[in-house]
């Protein structure tokens, strides 16, 4: 019987964990976290992005422990992140100084610096490559050497010394939107130097600062951000973007020298570079000035860790949606979007339904029985009848007085 089965919980948990461990151990495969990091860079990016923690080795370890579940790996990394002191805040990361290995614009064919397709699956055929099933380490090395020669680069196989991402770092490119601004098509905007909110250091407050909004979206569950962004462009909060620029590359992260607060590039400590994808989307909007309706452009911004391009675009859509804030559309309602994109919160609250709710259910039983009980019904009906009668009597008495007056 369920109500008593809660005893022995401790033992049950121990056994359950052993069973889980047995399932892992009996796989017969021991993957090095480093292997995971090299073989599944996209999964690593997603885990780090949703955890808001740049730690590729830990992400790889978390993925191993989580048996490949991204959701679970994010959970592990987020919980680890909670235990870290935060002694420094980085200087502002300047994405115009990113080492870009891929950048495209859907708005202009000819952009200053040119389109750089870089490495993308966008134009690949999604056909399962059965050759991979038989690929040997030798064959893979040969393939790498061949391609290194093709691209004229020295290193053919990542040697494990530098981080793999740095090896791919590219060049400096001007930003497409700066070009549009110079053309006068986009309004120029001033730098907002307000100290940004850190959403991991406080509860969200509404209306939300834009920094809080962008952080929440950037660390949001990839699929949730994409689903909401999709809903917005499909019709629930009509907001159809043109991707002004999407760029992927490595950006430098620096911290100030203690005591100096200028974030002067010369003085700041260089900590390392992180892979980022940045999207600036352009939206056509109707604006009214002096009673005249005109068309102009507005911007939506997306920035995510790693190469999660679809998420970055969806983020830029939602950023713009939340600027509009039309209450008719859920995708433009800050509380609806920002409270529900977090993967760890969604996973936790949904899965908590598996916990026992015996006490609350017993209480609910009592309530339902009372409402259904003869006593409850009779009491209610009697009270109703008395109230209805008293109300009607008073109204009737007044009507009678009216009659007499007439």
């Amino acid at each position, binding site marked *: *019987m*369920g*109500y*008593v089965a*809660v*005893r*022995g*919980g*401790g033992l*049950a*948990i121990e056994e359950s964990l052993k069973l889980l461990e047995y399932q892992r151990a009996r796989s017969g495969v021991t993957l090095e976290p480093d292997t995971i990091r090299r073989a599944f860079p996209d999964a690593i990016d997603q885990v780090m992005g949703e955890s808001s923690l740049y730690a590729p080795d830990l992400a790889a370890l978390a993925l191993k422990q989580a048996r490949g579940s991204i959701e679970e790996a994010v*959970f*592990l990394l*987020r*919980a680890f*992140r*909670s*235990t*870290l*002191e935060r002694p420094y805040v980085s200087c502002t990361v300047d994405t115009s100084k990113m080492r870009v290995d891929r950048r495209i614009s859907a708005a202009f064919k000819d952009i200053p610096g040119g389109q750089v397709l870089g490495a993308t699956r966008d134009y690949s055929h999604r056909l399962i490559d059965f050759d991979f099933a038989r690929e040997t380490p030798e064959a893979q090395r040969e393939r790498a050497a061949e391609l290194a020669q093709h691209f004229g680069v020295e290193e053919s196989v990542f040697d494990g010394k530098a981080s793999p991402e740095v090896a791919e770092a590219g060049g400096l490119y001007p930003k497409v939107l700066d070009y549009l601004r110079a053309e006068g098509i986009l309004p120029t905007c001033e730098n907002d130097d307000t100290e940004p909110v850190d959403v*991991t*250091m*406080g*509860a*969200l*407050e*509404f*209306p939300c600062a834009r920094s809080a909004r962008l952080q929440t979206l950037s660390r949001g569950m990839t699929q949730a951000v994409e689903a909401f962004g999709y809903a917005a462009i499909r019709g629930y909060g009509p907001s159809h973007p043109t991707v002004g620029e999407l760029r992927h590359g490595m950006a430098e992260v620096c911290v100030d020298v203690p005591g100096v607060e200028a974030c002067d590039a010369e003085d700041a400590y260089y900590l390392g570079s992180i892979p980022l994808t940045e999207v600036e989307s352009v939206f056509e909007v109707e604006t009214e000035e002096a009673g005249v309706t005109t068309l102009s452009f507005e911007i939506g911004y997306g920035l995510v860790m790693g190469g999660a391009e679809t998420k970055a675009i969806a983020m830029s859509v939602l950023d713009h949606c939340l600027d509009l804030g039309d209450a008719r559309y859920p995708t433009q309602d800050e*509380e609806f979007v920002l*409270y529900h994109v977090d993967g*760890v*919160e969604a*996973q*936790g*609250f*949904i*899965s*908590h339904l598996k*916990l*026992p*709710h*015996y*006490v*609350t*259910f*017993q*209480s*609910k*039983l*009592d*309530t*339902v029985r*009372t*409402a259904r009980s003869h006593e*409850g*019904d009779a*009491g*209610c*009906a009697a*009270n109703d009848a008395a109230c209805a009668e008293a109300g009607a009597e008073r109204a009737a008495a007044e009507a009678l007085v009216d009659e007499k007056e007439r």
Partner: protein
Amino acid sequence: MEQMYNFAFFDEASKREIRRAIFKGIAIPGYQVPFASREMPIGRGWGTGGLQVTLAIIGADDVLKVIDQGCDESVNAVNIKKLVAATTDVEVTEDTGEATIIQSRHRIPEQPLTEDQILVLQVPTPEPLRDFEPSEAKTRVLHAEADYTGAWLGLFDQIVKFGSTTTGADHPCLVNGRYVMAPSPIPRFDTLKLNDSDNLTILGAGREKKIYAVPPHTRVEPLDFEDYPFRVESFEGRACRLCGATDVYLDEFVDEATGKTVYQCNDTAWCAKRRAEKGGE
């Protein structure tokens, strides 16, 4: 793995910050203090609010008791207790009287708590007005202005439709005459224990990032109407089949052998203690 983590899991700065939120909650009874709720090694919605409170206040000399559904051995209680014990090495107990910190989900122990004890309740939904108003920005204004019409109206509508209020657990309460509070999904039977209690109660909602508190000897009044007074769950004419207790919250289940409905103390530690005392006589 645990040696990689600080005492009580968090870094000290995080603990201090959570304690600040707790102090603020104690200073303003029933007021939901937003705090920087951390991601925890257990699921959001699985007691992370209570866990963060416990970890922030626990010291090496504390004695910890964790219950879920009134039971020390319930899976989630065991899980939480294990995590706190592993990161602190504090003594754990099932004896309500011995504990200095009691973390609980859905129940307040039958044994009255003392001024030396702290009760930590896990809260899934801290906002008593959420059913009435989905927007957090708006409910904050309603609290600020003490506009609790929505909470009363919900109860009124239940009475009109069903002849009595239909709240199960988590019946809203007015704290210290000022803030309406969700007491967490404790049964109505336990709600009255919050009023003028000797112990401090701290309520933590991890996913919703709120901490609030009921200091000792604070007025906690369940919302009700003059002609429809607050009513607790009724176990009239029923007793625990094991210890014979009659004035406790009972679990109801069917005896598979006889097919009859039988009752048993929900608070397993209380029941065990009563039986031990009887046996010893």
